[in-house]
């Protein structure tokens, strides 16, 4: 009986490899797990975009004011343009405070972009050197973070969000962490 098992062994090895490949190859290697999920936000204070409205935002604003969303964007970022209407839709739902982190941008271009595309952000902060973004583990924009009432990062999405992602992931997670 044990001898028969030897014949099945190659098939079993093949099946195990097939499962590994099915999992490994269906993942997008450019999307990395975030090291900061369930960790507190880094301390920061961002000035507003030079010449723009508002007074920027800081880590203190993200604690005790309900769920917040930080959307990292720049005028030079093409996918940001694609997802912007969805960020606007999310902001209009008023389920979370949506902040815009303007990443390595020229203030004039950023303001023109916001004028053109609409400015859905409760506040925006300018990060010309990308240092705050690095503290957030940002490596490719757009990136979108959900931060709970206690200032803990609960979710991060890399790349432009799409309607499905908004409905099936972002909104439920915001709801889950809403006080």
């Amino acid at each position, binding site marked *: 009986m044990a001898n028969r098992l030897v014949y099945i062994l190659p098939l079993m090895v093949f099946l195990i490899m097939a499962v590994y490949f099915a999992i490994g190859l269906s993942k997008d290697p450019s999307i*990395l797990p975030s090291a900061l999920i369930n960790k507190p936000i880094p301390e920061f204070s961002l000035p507003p975009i030079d010449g723009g409205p508002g007074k920027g935002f800081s880590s203190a604003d993200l604690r005790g004011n309900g769920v917040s969303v930080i959307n990292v964007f720049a005028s030079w970022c093409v996918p940001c343009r694609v997802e912007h209407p969805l960020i606007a839709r999310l902001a209009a739902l008023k389920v979370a405070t949506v902040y815009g982190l303007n990443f390595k941008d020229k203030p004039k271009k950023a303001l023109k972009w916001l004028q053109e595309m609409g400015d859905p952000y409760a506040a925006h902060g300018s990060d010309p050197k990308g240092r705050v973004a690095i503290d957030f583990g940002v*490596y490719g924009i757009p990136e979108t973070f959900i931060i709970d009432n206690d200032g803990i990062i609960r979710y991060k999405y890399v790349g432009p969000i799409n309607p499905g992602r908004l409905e099936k992931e972002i909104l439920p997670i915001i709801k889950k962490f809403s006080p």
Partner: protein
Amino acid sequence: MRKALFALALVFAWPPPAWAVNPDEVLSDPVMENRAREISRGLRCLVCQNQSIDDSDADLAKDLRIIVRERLTAGDSDAQVVDFVVSRYGDYVLLKPPFKLATLVLWLGPAAIAGGGLIAVLMFFRRRRTGESAVQPAAVLTRPPPLSDEENRRIEELLKDDAP
């Protein structure tokens, strides 16, 4: 002769390999710069993924190189600098994954599979030697018993019949 010497001089004057590190990033202290280079070589550029930040021309790699140098100048140890980057980008940023519980399979898996294979091969040959094997080749390999006198006689008879 002079031309040959010139050619030889050119060979030895071969430029050092080029790096992505820009001159303006280089620290004035050569010891610290060396440490920075050593650390940079172990950190993955997350945009290009299979290059170190020392090799990569990406913006993020440049920023991280500068941060590595800033931390070193601020008096951090090599480990503290690496921790600083890992705390933001995760273990994935290390080109050489750390040895810990989550990566146990990664580090020990190949050795375990090779060991298992070796044991299987050894068992196969030991069984074969003792005559009991998975595919029972014993019957094929051992010589058949010699023909009996009766059988020899029959062969001769059959051959005789065939003769014309």
